[in-house]
Structure formats: structure tokens, C-alpha cells
């Protein structure tokens, strides 16, 4: 089974409306995980979403001193199983739902979700 990582960087689900808000990426398309200009930001690089010339990435905010540990947790999640449907929520900043007829209802407070205790936020950035 192929694994897919999910990232979302909006606080309110109503803003989840384009590829810079949330993205699902096949794990097989990840090209690297590496620090990004800071001791608390970690980039997950993957092949361009639309097969353009340069690759895309998301930026995770991580606990200072835990860069390597977060990398290891991400890799472990890539290879976890077999009791998984393949959809892995790496980081989800949503704290408020939207849509009165949606499954979760409108303006309901929900908890943000991160695969590691040392991930505190995510920014979906495309190149």
C-alpha cells in the first residue's frame, strides 16, 4: 500500500480552499527532509505538485533540538503498518470547522493534530 502524507496550515476550515492551504503528497514523491534556515524549521521536499521545473515543500515548525527526532518519526510513519489505510496526518493546524451540513458541523472547536509532539505548526509552501 502506498502511504500519503497530509498537511494543512489554516486555522479555520473555511480557508481550506487551495493547494497552499492543504495538500496530500505520496510518500514515494518525497525527495528530502532537511532543516530550512533555522534550528526550528524543517522542510519536507517533494516532487512538484504539477510537474513544474522545481520541487515543492512544506515547512514544519519543530522543537529546538529535536530536528533529528522529528525526521526519524516522519520516516517511521512512512514505513509504519500494516494496520493503516495509508493516510497519515503529519500536521493539521485546523482548530475551527466549517459547514453546517458537514460531518463535523459549523464553527466547532477541534484540536490541531501533529504526528509528533515536537511539531508545533505547519506552513504549506510551494516553490
Amino acid at each position, binding site marked *: 500500500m502506498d502511504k500519503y502524507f497530509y498537511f494543512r496550515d489554516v486555522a479555520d476550515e473555511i480557508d481550506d480552499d487551495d493547494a497552499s492551504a492543504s495538500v496530500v503528497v505520496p510518500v*514515494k514523491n*518525497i*525527495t*528530502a*527532509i*532537511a*532543516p*530550512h*534556515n*533555522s*534550528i526550528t524549521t524543517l*522542510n519536507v*521536499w517533494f*516532487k*512538484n505538485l504539477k*510537474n*513544474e*521545473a*522545481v*520541487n515543492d515543500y512544506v515547512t514544519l515548525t519543530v*522543537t*529546538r*533540538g529535536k*530536528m*533529528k527526532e522529528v*525526521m*526519524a518519526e*516522519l*520516516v*517511521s510513519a*512512512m*514505513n*509504519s503498518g500494516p494496520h493503516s489505510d495509508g493516510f497519515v496526518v503529519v500536521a493539521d493546524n485546523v482548530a475551527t470547522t466549517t459547514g453546517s451540513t458537514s460531518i463535523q458541523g459549523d464553527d466547532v472547536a477541534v484540536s490541531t493534530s501533529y504526528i509528533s509532539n515536537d511539531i508545533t505548526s505547519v506552513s504549506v509552501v510551494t*516553490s
Partner: protein
Amino acid sequence: MLFFRSVANDDATDGIDDAVCLPASSLRSVSPTSDTVVTMFFDSVKRNTDIHSDSVLMDSVALTVTQGDTFEVCNELVRIINSRPHSDGFIVIADDMTTTDSATAALANLVVPAKYAHPSITGVATITIGAATYNGRFPDFGIGNAEPTDISATELTVNTHYQSIAAATAVTIPSAAAGKAGDWITVVYDVAAGNTNAHTYTTTTDTAYALGSTIRTNRGSHADRIPLLDISEAADNVITITGATNGDGGLGTYLKFVNLTGAAQGWAAEVYVTDQGSGVTAATAAFS
């Protein structure tokens, strides 16, 4: 995934050249690059290898090794890459870090041992990850699957085909930094530029076209029309094609732009200027 870190203090782990986790599936080769260095070459992290893979350079990690043990290190690298299923897939090939960092004082500045996958690996010499640039190929005409738009005295839109007008006009090129590497623009002359009418193409935000951009003029049918070549230099941010009844700006003239870097001065230009009329008038198209 293979982990490498080249810095001794965790508080310096702040860039992709300091630490990186790369898929083993991206590994292209392992070879000595001196008698004490084994270099692992990987598919590019930042450049899409599915696009013009023939022009995308490899990334690399150079490991310092004990002289005489390059074979043993290569052997161990392959063995450990194939070490599953007894692994979660996170494999530390080489970690030079010996001093910890933390916002918690008690966890900072602790001395820890460096870690290497084989005793003959002694450190990470360099981690080399190429920038997210486009080793440019200029686009073909017609790939936009849309009718070209007339040029005008406005900023052109990236990834769009344009066609000429006869009147003079001052066209501007968008900021390279506002777009991304691989963006392109083309202009093809299906209408000749009118006599003395100048068409200028100016990078108003960028101070220059990418160095080495070219303007060429054709030989044409008249013996006096000598082909010219102008290569852009620093501060060349304007391309001027001035129509002449028997000179520049003929049908088939074209301009191709491609954004090489997604950063300032990233627009490379390839310009080819044909003649019109008898072609007796000397070519004048040039950068400035």
C-alpha cells in the same frame, strides 16, 4: 531514508547543507572522490528530475573515510540500505553532532558521541544540495494551446504566448522573483514592426537579464545585411527591436524568455530578429 549531518553542534543544524534525510531510492551511485572520501550521489532534492532530467545535476554527500577502506564503506552502505525488515527505515549513515542543543538548559550543551554506520566512516565532509533553479531550455511555440495575445505597453504574463503589433510599444517583463524557475514567455512576430517603431522589452524590477542572454539577427536576402550577435552584460535590462522598412522586425522574429532561478535577474532571453523588405538596412537590435 538516509540521515547525514555535518555539523558538530546541534545549534548549527539550520540548513539543508548541515543535515538532510534522503531517500535511499534517490541514490544514483557511490564512488571514491579521493582515497579518503566516498561520495554518494542522489537525484536532486529541489529540481524536478522529471523535467529535462538530462540537465539536472546530482546532489551529493561526501563522507570522509579511513584510507584504504573505500571498498568496505561501500559494502556497508549497501548492506545497511537493505537491512529491513528489522528497521523503521530511518538510517543514520553519519552524524557529526557531538554537542546537543535545546531550549531547556539541562538538555543543552551535552556531549554525545558522533554516530557512523561503519567504523571507517570518520565524518561528513560536505552535503551539497543544488538550488531550486532551472537549467534553462527555452520553450517551443504553441505549447500554450491558446491563441497568442497581442503585445502591448503592459507587463507580460508568465507562461503565455504573445504575438507582435506594428506600432511602437514598451513592454515590461515581470519580476523574476515574483515567479518561479521554469516560468516562460514567448513573443513571435506575425506582424512586422512598422518603420522606426521601437519595441522595447524591459525588466522593470530586475536590473538585468540573466548574463549570457542573446540577440541574434539573420543574414537575410541582401548582401549588406551582416548578422549580428549581442550577448547581455551586467545592467542590460532592455531589449530593443526597431522596425525598419528594409531592416529589423520582420515576420518570424521571436523572443523567448525563461526564468532560471525564481530570483532577481533570473530572466534569460533568446531573441532572433529577421529582416523585412529588401533587408538592406543594417540590423540594430540590441541590449542596453
